């Protein structure tokens, strides 16, 4: 399964590993408390004391970016995980039931698709209140149809695939064939989609924080940091620049890896 990583992909992989490490053990990267306000050092420019400077509360930006990795990535990651599970359930159900049920499910997904994603999330957040979890659920709802469609298509494709037929020909039961062949083979494209979606969802999650509907202060979350920085843009550029760079780099890395996974998954179809 693990094939050599293309040389061009190394920076992305390394970045991802670093980000994951930041999210898991932020202490490795900074000793500073991300929430420690230092009223005597507000808007300190980047320098030896504060690598990336400080924000309007004198909080160390590097520390906040490091500690911000977890909530920033968690929203996207959680949303995609929920969407994947939900999508898998819906997709498999639709594919298995077929007929009218399939039609109804597909239509419902279309309804979800037809509502602009931000509105959908707004609605969920409005119902559940702002915060990490509601943002996650809202965003999950946005990407669920994509997963459901892919899962459904994969199940249908694999069910008709000659090697699945061949396995049945050996006398395996339907369940055994599903466990042995359908699920593992569907996993490739679904995981590839998940990775690509993850990038988009992280951007979406940060947009939510930007509008103030994500994690609440003082949680260091990149989107929220950007939103806060906007008010002080005329005083200092660094609080607005670095979280944006972090966000962009994270999404770039994830998307690059996702596209590679997608290519591999596509390659297998041929």
């Amino acid at each position, binding site marked *: *399964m693990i094939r050599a990583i293309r040389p061009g992909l190394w920076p992305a992989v390394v970045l991802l590993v670093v980000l994951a490490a930041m999210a898991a053990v932020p202490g490795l990267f900074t000793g500073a408390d991300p929430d420690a306000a230092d009223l005597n050092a507000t808007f300190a420019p980047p320098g030896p004391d504060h690598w990336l400077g400080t924000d309007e509360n004198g909080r160390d930006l590097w520390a906040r970016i490091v500690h911000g990795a977890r909530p920033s990535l968690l929203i996207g990651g959680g949303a995609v995980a929920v969407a994947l599970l939900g999508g898998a359930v819906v997709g498999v159900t639709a594919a298995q039931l077929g007929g009218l049920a399939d039609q109804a499910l597909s239509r419902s997904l279309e309804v979800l698709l037809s509502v602009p994603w931000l509105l959908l999330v707004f609605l969920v957040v409005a119902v559940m209140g702002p915060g990490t979890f509601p943002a996650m659920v809202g965003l999950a709802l946005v990407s669920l149809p994509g997963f459901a469609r892919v899962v459904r298509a994969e199940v249908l494709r694999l069910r008709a*695939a*000659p*090697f699945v*037929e*061949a*396995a*049945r*020909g*050996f*006398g*395996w*039961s339907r369940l055994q064939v599903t466990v*042995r*062949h359908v699920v*593992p*083979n569907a996993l490739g494209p679904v995981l590839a989609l998940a990775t690509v979606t993850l990038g988009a969802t992280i951007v979406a999650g940060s947009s939510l924080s930007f509008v103030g509907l994500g994690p609440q202060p003082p949680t260091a979350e990149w989107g929220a940091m950007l939103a806060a920085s906007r008010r002080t843009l005329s005083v200092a550029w660094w609080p607005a620049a670095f979280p944006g760079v972090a966000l962009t780099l994270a999404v770039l890395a994830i998307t690059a890896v996702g596209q590679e996974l997608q290519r591999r998954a596509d390659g*297998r179809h041929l």
Partner: protein
Amino acid sequence: MTAPLVTVRDLRVDFPGDVAAVRGVSFTVDPGTVVAIVGESGSGKSVTARSLVGLAGERATVRAKTLEFEGHDLTGLDPRGWRALRGRRVGFVLQDALASLDPLRRVGAEIAEPLREHRTVPSRQVRAEVERLLGEAGVPAPEVRARQYPHELSGGLRQRALIASALAARPDLLIADEPTTALDATVQRQVLRLLRARADEGTAILLITHDLGVVAEIADHVHVMRDGVFVEDGPARRVLEAPEHEYTRTLVGAAAGHRRATPPGEPAVVLRAENLVKTFRLPGKRVLRAVDGVSFDVEAGRTLGIVGESGSGKTTVGRLLMGLTRPDAGSVRLDGSAWTELRGRDLRQARRRVQMVYQHPLGSFDPRYTARRLLAEPLDVVGVPEAEQADRAAELLGQVGLSPDLLNRRGRELSGGQAQRLAIARALACDPDVIVADEPVSALDASVQAQVLDVFAEIQERRAVSYVFISHDLGVIRRLADRVAVMKDGRIVESGEMAQVFDAPAHPYTKELLDAVPTLRLNHL
């Protein structure tokens, strides 16, 4: 004797990072003759042909001592010069007409393209000319066909349209790269006749093919190519009748096929198809009767060949035999009990007794699996203990002539022939009574086809397994079958002992099929 239209001396083509694709070939093409370059895939024959029009590929380096067209040197040609040559002086026909005609454009527009580009007729007359060309290429109702899209035409018509487009600007040379490979036998024959007719009218034709039958049908002169060099040249008849090079002999042998002796005795029936009917609903409330009242017996240790052209319903029959689809009527009985009567465990056990070998073996392999796991899967089912599986797997590979070294490879890492052998080994793993083989060799090169068919034959001799061989290729059927059923439009139009059907066909369709096959009718074989 006029001067040759094309003169090629010591043509060499390299691709960076690869072995040289063409390593010094020389040939000439005279007006009014058909010159064939024969070889298997990867031999460099297509690259040779494309080099003549400067389309060997962006990364290709083409060198030649001489590369002349009508005495003009082509080696230093600039893009403009090449474009003036292409289409106008040299027409090019590619293998798969469905892919070679732009699917988004009308057939007429495709044929008109060289006309407009080279302004061979005034633009007002383009339409009329297109229809004339189509008619000339043997396309009925050209005014209708010109307005259709490629996918709306049958394979034969499409290939004719493609030829019409290549000939549109009245080129002096027509290069045809595997022009008939995708076609059914009868259609193939018609297309070849069309090409021959053009040659007789004076057009020079360079024919690229892997099929010696095609060569025998129309070529005047033949070059046998292998690994980038010509291993044998000569007049077609001489090369086919008295091949000098060993490789040529292999090719000729593979193409000619041989008959096998039918085992004597009155065999028992293992699998019986009774009045099978299977219909499919098509869009627009049409109903396709894919299989329409088909009955036959599969006898123990013998081979039933089912012959038919594409769309005749033979693949559906295969699936019905496997019990993978339910017939709308009739039944398939394995040792007397019908698939439809079996349930659960019984059904699964019965399934093991009928195994399938597919046209594309890779499709029947889980892409994640190595050969070892692929073989372990059926072995698990029949309860071979894990400890013995490795030995069994190696043994199975041995039976199909594969080395156990391949056990750790994935399907994609195998060659076409290796993959199909592995598929056979896999089918054998359950120790089945019947193997249904659906076009098992049609995707393979000629010499590999012969080898794989040999594997089938050997196994049957050793294990007394029954085969149902489904193929459009009469050569394949002839090679293996004891009994033959000829299918057309979902029905069996004729069936019987192989010799009887092949030597004295009763149904006109069977006759037509047999006639159309461009086999090497060489008396001494």
